[in-house]
């Protein structure tokens, strides 16, 4: 059974997990908009899934592996790696420092 009500606190928590900054107004709006959608998901409670194995992939394939060799065709030069970087220095991407992980 899952709770169908999504509170503003939930939205804030989830937005943080998703690294999305939301204004207080947006949090209120999204909570309102998401609620009927989450309620819709309650439909699935009507389905008996006891003993049913989840399907994560539909290919039915297994063991799609690559040999251990260096694929020079696909490797970038430093310039290519950095070609879309908003900021770079001495071959590195740069970002403002944040707290350690």
């Amino acid at each position: 059974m899952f709770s169908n009500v999504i509170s503003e606190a939930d939205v804030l928590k989830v937005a943080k997990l998703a690294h999305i900054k939301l204004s207080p107004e947006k949090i209120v709006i999204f909570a309102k908009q998401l609620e009927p959608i989450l309620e819709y998901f309650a439909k699935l409670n009507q389905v008996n899934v006891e003993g049913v194995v989840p399907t994560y992939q539909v290919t039915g394939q297994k063991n799609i592996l690559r040999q251990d060799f260096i694929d020079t065709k696909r490797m970038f030069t430093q310039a290519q790696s950095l070609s879309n970087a908003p900021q770079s220095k001495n071959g590195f991407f740069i970002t403002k420092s944040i707290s350690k992980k």
Partner: protein
Amino acid sequence: MLLDKSILELAAGLRQDEFTSVDLVNECYDNIAKYNDKINAFITILPRETAIKQAQSVKLTSPLSGLPFVIKDCFNTSGITTTAASHVLKNYIAPYDATVYKKLLTAGAILIGKMNMDAWGHGGSSENTDFGPVKNPWDTTRVAGGSSGGPAAAISARMAVFAIGEDTGGSIRNPAAWCNITGLKVTYGRVSRYGSIAYASSFDTVGPMAKTAQDCAIVLETIAGVDPYDATSSPISVPSYSTLLNKKVSDLTIGIPDEFFQAGLDPEVKTAVLKVAEDLKNAGAKIKNLSMPLFDYGLAIYYLIGPSETSSNLARYDGIRYGQGREFFTDETTRRILIGTYALSAGYYDAYYKKAQQVRTLFIEEYKKALTKCSVLLQPITPTQPPKIGELMSDPLQNFLADIYTTSQNPIGVPSLAFPCGFTKTGLPIGAQLVGPMFSEDLLLNIGYQYQQLTDNHLKSPLSKGDLEGLKPKP
């Protein structure tokens, strides 16, 4: 108009010197100049001079050689801006090629545009875009459908010979229906996803969009096949689809799942779609009504699993290695990320995500069972006629419910062919879809081709009067 011709006719014409590839390119760019402002199908129009140069030097080695095409802007095309219709990737210049794009270049096709779409694939109307909505060529106050709205509108308005779209929950089929063109959602894994900006990894498919099933068959032959860069791509050999279109439909049974034709389906749409069964019956096919009781749950499993996967796929957009920051996501995209993050989060995973994947298993069984009773399933594509611009965006729940007929096929992986099957009283296109077992593209394209020999909806174009007036069908 040259662009009214089929791919086979164009290929023959080029080889017989009736016209040149340059002529085709020019006609496309003339139509773009005339109509794109009203339709807004393109995000990036490639320089005309470049296309002409390619057309001048092209070698006619494949049926697609020398033919101008467009591609949804979610495919990486080296050296060309690739945005997925989001300002997050406004300045992203792809440093590599999507496999499907590479294959088309090798075949000598000429890219002329990166097309407008719902950002990241998130939508069914091409309004969730940072580049302005795509307008329906049949009525520019209405949506073209989505998320591959740009490609569909471009084919419809004769701006390109064929297009490559991407379908995760109806994104090829929906705009095909509303723009009156033919589009193929392939079996999951039939065409490589490498280089296609991911929406939902276990749903996304890459497929052809063109005027006819035969055109789609020719494009599919070129783009299908296993790719060592995509571990989900299928090693099953690629049939010569274009040579398999001639079987008559008299051996076939068309299944009609009752639950797909209940309340909530526009009566004109219902009539037009069911008429497909009649037309095929007249050609010798059998019809069988059957039940698919899980129909009601398809939308829920799609909208739980899809956003979950997308919330993860979009985590790479942090503005450090490329692109801009996450504050540029639209509201619709943000909502999907939030739903997905929520469904995967601790305490909710079992009830939402895992449960959806379990119902998915049951759905796979249900489709398998239904397809033992018939050769293919006939289903509507959209519950309504093309809405006015702004209608769907104003109501997230309505927007969500609009995908009801096209969201069960992707979680299963089965292919579906979308094709024109009629018009509303007011001249708006209606489409139908035929869904088959895994890797039955040959069957679907065969039936589509046969159907298109018996009907002419697919031949109609919004340009018939020369300035985009909708075509009113004869009473």
